[in-house]
């Protein structure tokens, strides 16, 4: 669909004719997107345009009504595909963190590796401490999530999502629930991930950040991709009326 498909990188995510309805309400009305290995794609758009729904279709947190979604070589719309296997390749970070309050910070991160028998408890803890190092929270390993600030919670959530060593990371408004002074620390972690070459899809309201970090920006409106392109093109020289209208409101 977009100009970026000409890039040589192999496709990590391919979305074809994706449709999603809640009852009679069609929220996604035929989406086509291709995202290459190591690419960072930011999704922007007005509230209710279907950004979260698109993201949640990528790891099948939402049932897909029609079309195809291929992630890391798995067709997630194929009922024979083990969705749990696919999800191990895709980390997800939520707006409201969704940390497990009855576990310590380290236990939150160790849960998946231990339960999915990818590591012993000791190995998983060691790995958890390394991940916490990466997000700058090693000293909080044995704290309860409730004792952390919002920014710290989100950094732990990112560490948790990285625990299964996913090749793709999805972020749904990871900084929207944060106090402004904490946004920076979380963005820094995401920036580091981008620098390491992680394939990422970010739904965000931080236009500055999208411009800075995105290899590509996708503008969604009313359940379709309205316009997409390199950040400097989309922000500097939008082609569609809807895009111009939206940008004039948020910039």
């Amino acid at each position: 669909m977009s100009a970026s498909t000409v890039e040589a990188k192999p496709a990590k995510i391919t979305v074809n004719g994706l449709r999603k309805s809640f009852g009679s309400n069609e929220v996604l009305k035929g989406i086509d997107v291709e995202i290459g290995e190591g690419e960072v794609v930011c999704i922007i758009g007005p509230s209710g345009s279907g950004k979260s729904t698109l993201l949640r279709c990528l790891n099948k947190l939402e049932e897909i009504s029609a079309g195809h979604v291929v992630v890391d070589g798995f067709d997630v719309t194929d009922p024979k595909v083990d969705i749990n296997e696919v999800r191990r390749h895709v980390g997800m970070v939520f707006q409201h963190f969704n940390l497990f309050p009855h576990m310590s910070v380290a236990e939150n991160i160790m849960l998946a590796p231990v339960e999915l028998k990818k590591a012993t408890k000791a190995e998983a803890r060691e790995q958890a401490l390394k991940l916490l190092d990466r997000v700058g929270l090693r000293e909080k390993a044995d704290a309860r999530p409730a004792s952390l600030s919002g920014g710290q919670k989100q950094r732990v959530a990112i560490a948790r999502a990285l625990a299964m060593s996913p090749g793709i990371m999805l972020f749904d408004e990871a900084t929207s629930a944060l106090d402004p002074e904490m946004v920076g620390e979380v963005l820094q972690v995401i920036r580091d991930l981008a620098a390491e070459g992680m394939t990422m899809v970010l739904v965000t309201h931080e236009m500055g950040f999208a411009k800075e970090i995105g290899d590509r920006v996708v503008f969604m409106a009313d359940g379709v991709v309205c316009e997409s392109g390199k950040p400097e093109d989309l922000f500097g020289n939008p082609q569609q009326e809807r895009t111009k209208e939206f940008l004039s409101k948020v910039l």
Partner: protein
Amino acid sequence: MSKMTGGPRGWLKVVTAALFGFMLLLGPVSPAFAQQSDSGVAGKKFVIGTDTTFAPFEFRKNGELTGIDMDLIRAIAKSEGFEVEIRSLGFNAALQALTSNQVDGVIAGMSITDERKKVYDFSEPYFESGIQMAIAKGNTDIKGYEDLRGKTVVAKTGSEGETYAKSIAEQYGFTVKSLDQSATMYESVKAGSAVAVFDDYPVLAYGVAQNNGLKTVTEKVPGGSYGFAVNKGKNTALLGAFNDGLAKMKANGEYDKLLNTYLADPTAEVPSNFWDLLVKSFPALMKGLGNTLLVTGISFVVAMALGLLAGFMKISSNIVVRGIATTFVNIFRGTPLLLWAFMFYFGLPQLTGVEISIWVAGVLTLSLNSGAYIAEIVRGGIQSVDPGQLEASRSLGLGYGKSMQKVVVPQAFKMMTPSLINQLIIMLKDSSLLLAIGFGELLYQGQQIYAANFRVTETLIIVGLIYFVAIMALTKLANYADRKFNK
């Protein structure tokens, strides 16, 4: 005499009637299944049903069933060479058990009436009873029926005492109030809410000799006779052996000796004060408490399993699974506990022909009832966990079951714990209802004690204190466990 038509409790009659109506709808009552060999009794064992508390015919002394009926049936069994297993069920329950062949015979201070002769076969009468009036010990105003004018007397619901009192009420101008238990009647005479009680002569005679605070001022009015009953046409050998043994005892003087033990010279020690009562009744009450705790404990484990299963079924996406759980919950929340106690103990054996132990019936009753409530607690607990928790766990690649087990249920349990503790305490208190089928729990033991010694108030206070202490201890323990495991 006592219990001409129905039982000591009005509601029992109503529930029983409803239960039997329900049975008729379901189909014909299945045929007999208890022991019914008619070829001699020597060496055989017979199950005999009796009342729980009908002193001096049956009552508990130091936890042991004793009384005229008990001594008589045991003596006859010994002389005729058979064994008896006594089941203290309550009067109505014993008769129902006889009808459903759960017991082979009933001896329960039961009058031989034409009504009863239609459904049971009776032995020769073993006791000639009668009706007598008693008044408070300190009452010097009443010397005969003439002094009752304008006053209220009490009699036992459905008893011959009631029939007799009513038959002379108009002539002497007094009002008859019907009560359900001897002990209650005596208390109301002592408390002054009635001036006199009309009751079976042996019961009164025994009570007076036990210092129950009453005295008799009129002669006994001769009444009917008591008999031992078997189901119509069944256990004829047992009936024959009873008659034979009774005749022998009457001939050799043992019979008179036995009656005198209870009526002329009562031997039961009467506790003189509260402390004495406490000490004497403590072993029996502790046994009752043990049964209460055990039946509650077992039932709670079963109820938790049922409640978890039904609770998860209620949040299933499958409409059939959900429907089954909802039906279960609605049935057991929408019907009284007591109905199920009767159903499992009396109804089910009649339908299936399989005898049910009182423990099984008790546990079924309590656990199905509580299971329904726990299912709702479980459903509510799980639904109160933020759906984002399940999503986060699923997004990590954990399956639904693992996510529930590791993430959702632990959080749900934390929220459920106070409600579960509450449910446990409700169950412990509800277990006292099982006394209606003769389950030997705490309150039942209390009833046994005051039926023998007439110290109703003090005994109930002791029982109440034991319940209170047990429940407080349980609450503290549960809250401690909650704090310890649900940090």
